[in-house]
């Protein structure tokens, strides 16, 4: 069994569009995730998908499931939640969602950066690492700062994952399909 939790940035900056990620980055992420989850679930029933959102806070929005109707319904309800960006809190919620699950575990963080709240991502990564959770990050470029890259690189390195930068919808789909279909770096 493979468990994947998407950790989705719903902070204010995701309200803007960039390149063809329109009308907003968040809407593009919702659309892309709908396509990607449908595709991976149709190919493999041994995958369970969960969801967590973060802004200045973080909370789970979807317990692990392979019910695509539930997943799509949850994605359709996603909205911008507020100020701040606390991906570390989001990652911890994701690991907690998978606490009782057996099999491979993976968290995929989708963000446009600007990390400024909550538990530092590299400290949350320690929990993921101890819980044997692979952490990948899809980073939407445009407003990423050096400090965001520092935290993302440290996290993916520690947790055997990958960081992929995207700027277009096609890149976002490709990145999410790739990361959702494979486990960590060999």
């Amino acid at each position: 069994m493979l468990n994947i939790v998407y950790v989705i940035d719903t902070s204010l900056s995701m309200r803007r569009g960039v390149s063809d990620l329109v009308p907003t980055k968040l809407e593009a992420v919702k659309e892309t995730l709908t396509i990607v989850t449908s595709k991976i679930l149709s190919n493999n029933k041994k995958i369970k998908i969960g969801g967590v959102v973060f802004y200045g806070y973080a909370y789970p929005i979807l317990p692990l499931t392979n019910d695509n109707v539930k997943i799509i319904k949850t994605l359709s309800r996603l909205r911008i939640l507020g100020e701040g960006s606390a991906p570390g809190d989001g990652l911890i919620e994701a690991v907690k969602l998978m606490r009782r699950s057996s099999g491979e575990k993976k968290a995929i963080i989708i963000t446009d950066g600007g990390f400024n709240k909550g538990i530092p991502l590299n400290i949350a990564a320690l929990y993921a690492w101890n819980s044997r959770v692979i952490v990948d990050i899809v980073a939407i470029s445009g407003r990423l700062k050096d400090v965001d890259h520092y935290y993302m690189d440290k996290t993916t390195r520690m947790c055997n994952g990958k960081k992929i930068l995207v700027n277009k919808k096609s890149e976002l789909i490709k990145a999410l399909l790739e990361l959702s279909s494979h486990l960590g770096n060999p």
Partner: protein
Amino acid sequence: MIDLVIAAEKSKYSRNELIHYFLNQLVDTLYKTPFIRVGFIVYCKYAVPLIDLSTEYRNLGKIYAHIPVLRGVPEPAKAIYEAVEMLLDLEDQLTLKKKIVLIASFIKEPSISLEDALEYASMNDTRVLIIRAPQKKTHWILAEYEKAPEGVHLRKNNIPDIINELLK
């Protein structure tokens, strides 16, 4: 099986080297004691779970040492709530006793009530052992601290006693 969650403060107010030493001593003893699962949380203004309840906690001291000193005013109540959540999430038919060890400086007054958190733990059949490890003397906690009957002050020479108390 005893399920034990250790919640250790790492702030500029706590005696971090002494706490690290205590954690290493504790892990050495616990490893020789059968039927114990250990979880680990580090906290300051937020509480970070680092190891979920399991029998694989050998590196706990190393992990504590690896974490940087966290900023802000320590919120021990957050650590208690996080620990209770971990104990409840991972409780199973093997669980016989649930315990939390809270290691705190109690130098700065937190904004979240520790008393309420201790009451919440108690309502969930969880015993909390409070260990004080402050950098300097303080008085704010006395009222709440006195209500917590199992509080002790961490010193190098009373570590064996604390561990014995913990294993009762």
